[in-house]
């Protein structure tokens, strides 16, 4: 019995009480959303509103939703492209050639955490006014702003992988065997960083799909702004779509979690 006093962990009843209580309270809003979507048009409960999604009585009402979904998909792809084609090569370059820049570079990449999106948008408005005049008001330029938003998360995922791999030796080995630099990066370094790159891409997708502030205030339509518009017309469909995207993000984050664990596992093995 004296061992019990030496445990950091709380007694079993305390663990159970806290987790059940907090778990119950936190599941109420999710369950409420489910109940809300199952309400019948008259009384009682049915799948009527879920059916609306497949066979809409008024397809025009859902038009913003499809547009928003398409736009968010485009933005997710473009943002991932920025992470993979702009951020990742620069990080490799800093790691290999400019070790002294690592600290300032880290500071730069983590900076957007401290700048609220609502503040950034004040400065982005004039920038996008210029962009709108030059490139038109298409949705894709918004990805440049999202690239900044995801910068801290993408940086951390890739850096964790960079720390676990001896990039210098790999690059030197490949170079001494006669590989050109593009070949070194694509065929030798990228495969060794694929876990970090994949993690960075998935987190970027999750962030972009959930982004509302910048799109809303720059008058661009994405999934989140569309949800708000549709909720005014048909709140049930908006809540159904929220549940679905919540489920999607949950799966996405589960995958991210698995991959992140693998990076830490690799790191501890090497340490």
């Amino acid at each position, binding site marked *: 019995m004296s061992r019990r006093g*030496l*445990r*950091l*962990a709380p*007694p079993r009843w*305390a*663990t159970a009480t806290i*987790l059940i209580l*907090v778990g119950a309270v*936190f599941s109420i*809003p999710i369950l*409420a*959303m489910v*109940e809300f979507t199952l309400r019948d048009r008259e009384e009682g409960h049915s799948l009527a509103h879920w059916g609306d999604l497949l066979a809409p009585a008024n397809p025009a009402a859902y038009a913003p939703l499809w547009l928003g979904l398409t736009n968010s998909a485009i933005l997710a792809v473009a943002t991932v492209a920025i992470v993979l084609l*702009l951020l990742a*090569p*620069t990080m490799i*370059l800093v790691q*290999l*050639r*400019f*070790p002294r*820049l*690592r*600290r300032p570079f880290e500071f*730069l990449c983590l900076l*957007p*955490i*401290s*700048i*609220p999106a*609502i*503040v*950034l948008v*004040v*400065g*982005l408005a004039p920038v996008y006014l210029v962009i709108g005049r030059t490139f038109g008001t298409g949705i894709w330029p918004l990805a440049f702003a999202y690239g*900044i938003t995801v*910068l801290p998360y993408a940086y951390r995922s890739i850096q964790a992988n960079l720390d676990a791999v*001896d*990039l*210098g*030796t790999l690059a*030197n080995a490949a170079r001494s065997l006669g590989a050109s630099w593009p070949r070194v990066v694509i065929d030798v370094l990228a495969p060794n960083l694929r876990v970090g790159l994949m993690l960075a891409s998935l987190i970027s997708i999750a*962030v972009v799909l*959930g982004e*509302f*502030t910048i799109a*809303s*205030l720059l008058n661009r339509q994405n999934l*989140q702004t569309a*949800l708000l518009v549709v*909720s005014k017309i048909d*709140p049930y469909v*908006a809540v159904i779509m*929220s549940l679905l995207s*919540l489920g999607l*993000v*949950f799966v996405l*984050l589960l995958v991210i979690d698995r991959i992140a664990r693998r990076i830490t596992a690799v790191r501890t093995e090497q340490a």
Partner: protein
Amino acid sequence: MTVIITNDGAIAPAAADAPRPSRPARRRGALPAIGLAPFGVYVLLFLAVPTGLAIGTGFLDGDGAFTLDNLAALAEPVIVQTFLNSFLLSAVTAVVGAVVGALVCWAVLGLREGGAIRGAIDSASSVLAQFGGVMLAFAFIATIGINGVVTLLLKDLGIDIFADGAWIYAFPGLFLPYIYFQVPLMVITFMPALTGLKPQWMEANATLGGSVPGFWLRIAAPVLAPSFLASLLLLFANAFSSYATAAALASQGAQIVPLQIRAALTSETVLGRENLAGALALGMIVIMAIVMGAYALVQRRAARWQS
């Protein structure tokens, strides 16, 4: 091989400095530096310029001339009230989130590491911490909105939670949704500190005749205090900078600073000033810089016990 000592004291092989005999040394300097340029230009255009503009426009009037008029607006009672509201909302939800979150972390210690429940709590926390914005607003409208599940249930019991008006769509309605994303964020950020607490310390305490409450009070509390404070600051910053949830819930009015910025951006003139959004943004940045600076300092101290 040359070896360099990085800032954190780790010894890293300086592979980049290893001379390659095939090429003259001076060619190595310029070419890689050009490689940094695209990212540099990108960050300049989409991070430095917008931040500079956000801070700078507060000092300009409608014609682009320098003025302190917008900054003076920060002293107007309406604006002061929104900043106070933002402070209140951030502080209350940060404290509630930190306390409940820390309790959850403590409870999780009682679960087997790598177990299914622990994994589920980890994943649920990272999802719910990201679950801000429009969808969170919907969840709370479905729960305690006018036709929300809990509202209707309570009405059946004879309790009308909206007897004093539909507060869910106003400032008081923000507290519960904010707490909803603060608690999981606390779980994510505070968990590493708690798992870093070594059982050996408790054994040492017991061997020296210390009691269990004595351990928590005299050993665990001082060790955990910096981590707890750091998480608390992060939660404050998180609530303070949050916009989407409030925007979706309160479609009208500007009770907190981010909503005041929305009003200033969309209606052009608030309080008869053109660039009030810039001044408000400047105010937010100053507060965020103080909070995040304090966070970095406290976090450095907290990191001492985590290795």
